[in-house]
């Protein structure tokens, strides 16, 4: 073993944004934009005072490859829609025709799991609040899935902090094989196919596939998120110091119900990005010959046996690519140590161990992961139901079960009935609906909103704007995702009795 060299990779501050499916079950027309607004309004009215989101620094049209927005794509600014920031540091708003919850910035994968679950609790409370506030019109059901089974898909995006100095083509080159193959543990499972059945040349049908999202991807790299979706999204909007950072916006993921799946999705991806940042994968023979095709091949093959072609001509399974990434990560951890998933190296070790045990189980018998992985749990349930009732895979009951697995109502959710492994304590999840994570800038945002929501004119990922009643508005920039933590500002905030005092002490 070489002497330990400290890596140059930076902490993988991360978060998850989930667009939920909405379905009005009250009388009359169900307008999804209206339904989403009712949910959020009702929640916010009950839970806290609404705070307007500040769009000043939002530029979703910027491209990581260096060029500006294309003429065809205007920045999507929807200030007229409901848009709010919660005291846990999350953003909760209407995006297109879905309620979207963007978790606060988190420092560890387990924290992401916690705040992702907190988002589900918030949506569940929103459903209850909407019915209380609006009666029959407010009877809206929320689903945490990615497709309506009719070709319409909505996303669950991840975000990871990256060093600006890492060349984007290197990120795209090495993260692609990971994105294409990680679905063997991050997939949420789907009955049938929305594009595959008509595409297969040999006449075979897709009865059940691993991923909800995979088949909606048509490009390798690009800026779009809704049309011609790319496996690697180039949106360049760091929400932080743009000289130092980039935010990798990941749009390929399935929304997971399983905590283990979310943990692995975020944890392993953060590990792979750490290695890319440190140029650790430079000689790895992992580049796929045809990533878009491979993504579907992996999703359509729950037996995990399909061979994917690499650019080198070698043919490997998705599982083999994951094993090779794991071996590289083990060596990297041994030589350099990994502190990018949290300061304690145990955090990264926990992800490595879980990754390894999951790959071992997938190799010997995926069924043994029926309490850990969504696609395995869902498939087992569907198989048993199919056998009991003698149904074929295209039976409506199975499609209904597929949707209902993701229903957030406890009395209807199929997921909630399964004995799935839990990684976070439900009481902690409850606290996380109102308390920010302590070790990112979300702490400062959340705490200011808890104490002085009335004086916060606008909140953004990278700034808070205070209105003290006298002009001008005062802006507090938060360009460093790891500043403004409890360690930095807890005593400062405790020592201030008003926002004016805080601003004075901050010298802004």
């Amino acid at each position, binding site marked *: 073993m070489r002497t330990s060299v400290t890596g140059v990779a930076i902490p993988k501050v991360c978060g998850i944004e989930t667009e939920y*499916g909405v379905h009005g079950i009250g009388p009359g027309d169900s307008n999804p934009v209206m339904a989403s607004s009712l949910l959020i309004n009702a929640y916010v009215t009950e839970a806290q005072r609404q705070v307007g989101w500040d769009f000043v620094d939002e530029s979703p049209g910027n491209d990581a490859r260096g060029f500006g927005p294309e003429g065809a794509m205007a920045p999507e600014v929807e200030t007229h829609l409901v848009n709010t920031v919660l005291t846990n540091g999350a953003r909760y708003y209407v995006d*297109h025709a879905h309620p979207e919850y963007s978790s606060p910035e988190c420092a560890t994968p387990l924290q992401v799991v916690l705040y992702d679950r907190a988002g589900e609790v918030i949506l569940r409370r929103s459903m209850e609040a909407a019915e209380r506030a609006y009666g029959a019109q407010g009877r809206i059901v929320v689903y945490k899935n990615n497709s309506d089974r009719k070709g319409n898909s909505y996303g669950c995006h991840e975000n990871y902090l990256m060093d600006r100095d890492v060349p984007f083509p290197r990120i795209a080159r090495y993260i692609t094989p990971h994105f294409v193959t990680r679905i063997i543990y991050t997939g949420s499972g789907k009955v049938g196919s929305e594009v595959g059945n008509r595409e297969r040349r040999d006449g075979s049908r897709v009865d059940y596939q691993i991923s909800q999202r995979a088949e909606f991807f048509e490009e390798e790299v690009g800026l779009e998120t*809704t049309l011609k979706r790319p496996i690697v999204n180039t949106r360049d909007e760091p929400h932080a110091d743009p000289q130092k950072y980039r935010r990798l916006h990941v749009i390929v993921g399935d929304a997971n119900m399983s905590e283990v799946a979310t943990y692995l999705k975020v944890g392993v991806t953060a590990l792979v990005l750490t290695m890319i940042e440190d140029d650790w994968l430079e000689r790895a023979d992992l580049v796929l010959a045809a990533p878009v095709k491979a993504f579907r091949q992996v999703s359509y093959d729950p037996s995990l046996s399909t061979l994917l072609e690499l650019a080198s001509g070698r043919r490997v399974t998705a599982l083999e690519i994951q094993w090779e990434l794991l071996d590289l990560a083990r060596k990297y951890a041994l030589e350099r140590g990994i502190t990018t998933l949290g300061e304690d190296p145990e955090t990264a070790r926990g992800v490595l161990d879980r990754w390894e045990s999951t790959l071992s189980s997938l190799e010997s018998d995926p069924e043994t992961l029926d309490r850990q992985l969504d696609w395995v749990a869902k498939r087992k349930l569907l198989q048993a139901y199919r056998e009991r009732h003698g149904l074929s895979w295209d039976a409506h009951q199975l*499609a209904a*079960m597929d949707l209902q697995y993701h229903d957030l109502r406890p009395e209807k959710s199929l997921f909630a*009935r399964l004995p799935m492994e839990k990684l976070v304590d439900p009481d902690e999840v409850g606290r996380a609906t109102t308390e920010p994570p302590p070790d990112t800038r979300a702490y400062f945002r959340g705490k200011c909103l808890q104490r002085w929501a009335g004086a916060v004119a606008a909140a953004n990922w990278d700034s808070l704007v205070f209105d003290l009643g006298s002009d001008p508005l005062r802006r507090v920039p938060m360009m460093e995702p790891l500043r403004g933590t409890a360690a930095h500002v807890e005593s400062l905030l405790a020592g201030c009795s008003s926002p004016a005092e805080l601003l004075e002490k901050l010298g802004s």
Partner: protein
Amino acid sequence: MPERELKKKQAPARTETAVEDEAAQSSDKAEALKAEMDELLDEIDEVLEDNAEEFVRNYVQKGGE
């Protein structure tokens, strides 16, 4: 991948009684799991949306992101 082979640990040699005990236990376990699944399927029959066909047809979303 040689390293991967190393990860597959050899099971220690076991006595015949241990194997028999294990077989009995695993059949008990299989029974229990089957009962558990049957109960779950009963429950699903109760909570599944009444008209599956209509429910699936009416579940229409706008594309997002």
